[in-house]
């Protein structure tokens, strides 16, 4: 992930008013995590699985502050239970930013399931998403995601793909 893309994610988060980021580190976004940790305006919480991260983000929402859950798209599978209960059960939104593993061009066999399962799971959770492939589209996509989720009170996602993570 290039520095411009890292900066664009952090800029988008700040434009959206995000103060807390929960993450489980992954390889495609690996440059993003230390940059978030180093940012004085963002409190980061490393979690043990993405479902736990979703729950923490839900709690941050209830406090009136804004949170993001950042992860590989495989983390969606680990967090389905939590996301379903929070979003579909109670209307507590979690905004997710995830790397697009398993897209066409994927060169790791173990990552193929991540691409195949991502969109059906997002659809099953009635969660709209935008797949972003250009760095100059990142910040607006993140802001749009927050605007939607804070009117729908439901989850939304930004998928970082293409040249952003390759």
């Amino acid at each position, binding site marked *: 992930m290039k520095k411009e893309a890292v900066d664009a994610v952090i800029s988008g988060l700040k434009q959206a008013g995000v103060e*807390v980021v929960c993450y489980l580190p992954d390889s495609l976004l690996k440059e993003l995590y230390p940059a978030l940790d180093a940012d004085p305006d963002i*409190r980061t*919480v*490393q*979690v*043990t*699985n993405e*479902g*736990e*991260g*979703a*729950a*923490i*983000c*839900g*709690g*941050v*929402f*209830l*406090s*009136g*502050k804004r*949170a993001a859950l950042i992860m590989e798209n495989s983390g969606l599978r680990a967090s389905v*239970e*939590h996301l379903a*209960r*929070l979003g579909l*059960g*109670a*209307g*507590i939104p979690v905004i997710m930013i995830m790397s697009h593993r398993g897209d066409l061009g994927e060169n790791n066999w173990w990552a193929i399931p991540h691409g195949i399962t991502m969109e059906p799971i997002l659809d099953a959770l009635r969660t709209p998403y935008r797949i972003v492939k250009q760095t100059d589209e990142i910040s607006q996509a993140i802001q749009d995601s927050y605007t939607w989720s804070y*009117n729908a*009170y439901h989850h939304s996602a930004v998928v970082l793909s293409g040249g952003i993570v390759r």
Partner: protein
Amino acid sequence: MMKRYECMQRLGAQLDDELVILSLGGAVDEWYNAAPHMREGSLFQQQLGCVTGEALGLAIGLPNRRIVSLDTDGGLLFDLGILATLGNEKPENLFVVVWDNESYQSIGGPKTHTASGTVNLAEIARGCGIEQAFVVRDLDEFEDHCRRGLGAKEPYVIVAKTDGILQPGISRKHSDGREDKYIFVRHVEKTEGVSIMGPSEHN
């Protein structure tokens, strides 16, 4: 064996402006009746494995407010990793009570892993670096731990061993998760002076 309802009455008597996140099952109706003054300040959810995580998020978002997580043995076993995160994050305003009745009471009482006697949730918490973690079996001790936990400047976890008998004769709370969320959010907005679910823009 302690009764969960009596524990709740002792805990509720110590609460005023705290915020409570609680678990699913019979504990929801019991808390609704045992601490009626805390109804608006309590988030009644049906969220296995989400309770202490949500409470941590709330504690991070409101560092000057005392947050109470009322979790359960089944719920915590579902998401044990949260203890490791609590151990690392060390929130100064989060008090966790785990109602451990050694069973999945809400579905009729099949045993959880704590029923074997070999699984100790407080020991797991201590192994995660949460030094203030205790198994409690006596009502007066429970009350005393609540007092200390509510004033602690580090995460404090009580595993309260209770019987699996639902308090008889209590009324059912009949709102759903969405209504409960609105009630809770409006209470946070009012007491914190913030807007969480505000009006839409006109355009």
